[in-house]
């Protein structure tokens, strides 16, 4: 089952280089990605009539090619070349051509506060950890992370507030269980509570109500049983 990320996912260059391409989509360890952000230092900048080609280095691999298309009607301003030696945040789409990965940037912003870089590092670990946890079956026993400062990751219990594909971690877990239920009448609320030990019944009911109103699931024999609308 795909978990599609409709958000912009912070990544390292090494993760982007390791992403696998299947048809039109990229996956980093099974998590689908499209729009990404990277942060690194510009090592090289080359201006062409229609685009600027940068090489952005975040130390995790060789510098990555980042292409920014230039609006040929616009004079200067938006499309001034950022000089090498500048730390930037790049938001863009991952591309692969002849087995070489690159980014097409829709935004390149010089960093004014280098503490943003520290935050970005933490956000990368956080985002990829949550995306990965959302993919795993929620019936696995929750792992405890050592208290390295991130605290409760929110994948199990706790807040679970980072939305992925429009769903919170709680909603994703409930949806995944319902999707994977083979029984014709679907999954019951009691069964969900049994599998999701760390979630209260009211949290589960809230998630079910949300998923149902969004059309991800529908009730079957009664209001306690649900199936997924996504055809397997």
């Amino acid at each position, binding site marked *: 089952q795909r978990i599609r990320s409709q958000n912009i996912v912070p990544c*390292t260059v090494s993760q982007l280089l390791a992403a696998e391409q299947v048809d039109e989509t990229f996956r980093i360890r099974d998590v689908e990605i499209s729009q990404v952000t990277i942060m690194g230092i510009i090592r090289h900048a080359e201006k062409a009539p229609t685009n600027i080609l940068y090489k952005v280095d975040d130390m995790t691999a060789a510098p990555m090619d980042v292409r920014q298309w230039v609006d040929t009607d616009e004079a200067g301003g938006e499309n001034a070349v950022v000089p090498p030696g500048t730390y930037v945040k790049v938001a863009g789409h991952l591309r692969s051509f002849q087995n070489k990965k690159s980014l097409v940037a829709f935004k390149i912003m010089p960093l004014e506060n280098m503490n943003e870089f520290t935050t970005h590092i933490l956000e990368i670990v956080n985002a990829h950890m949550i995306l990965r946890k959302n993919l795993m079956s929620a019936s696995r026993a929750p792992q405890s992370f050592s208290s390295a400062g*991130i605290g409760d990751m929110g994948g199990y219990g706790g807040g679970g507030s980072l939305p992925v594909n429009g769903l919170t971690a709680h909603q994703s877990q409930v949806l995944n269980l319902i999707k994977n239920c083979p029984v014709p009448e679907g999954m019951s609320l009691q069964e969900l509570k049994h599998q999701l030990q760390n979630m209260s019944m009211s949290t589960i009911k809230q998630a079910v109500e949300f998923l149902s109103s969004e059309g991800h699931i529908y009730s079957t024999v009664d209001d306690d049983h649900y199936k997924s609308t996504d055809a397997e």
Partner: protein
Amino acid sequence: MEDVHEVPRKRIATAHLAQHIGKPVCFVGRVEKIHPTGKFLVLSDGEGKHTTVELSEPLDEEISGVLEVVGRVTNQATIMCMSYVQFREDKSPFDLELYNEALKIIHEFPEYFPFG
């Protein structure tokens, strides 16, 4: 000798130097001392521990603040610097202690922050 800028350079603090002898690394620290010859710098990391950095070319100007050094760890657990940049602090000071905490996290979760 390969260009150290084309390979993964693990972000480390002073405490990790011994485990990375011979390896390409990236070290961020605050300038504490500059040797009179301009060939050596002492930088302090987020834990206040000092690392000696040897420059491939002597400095021709005074430098201060937070530097990000790219280079290789020598047998003496110093860093042979291939390039460095200064972190801008004109708008906000850089929180080196927080960066050190972030290093601990990326070292603990290499599957979510891979080098190479």
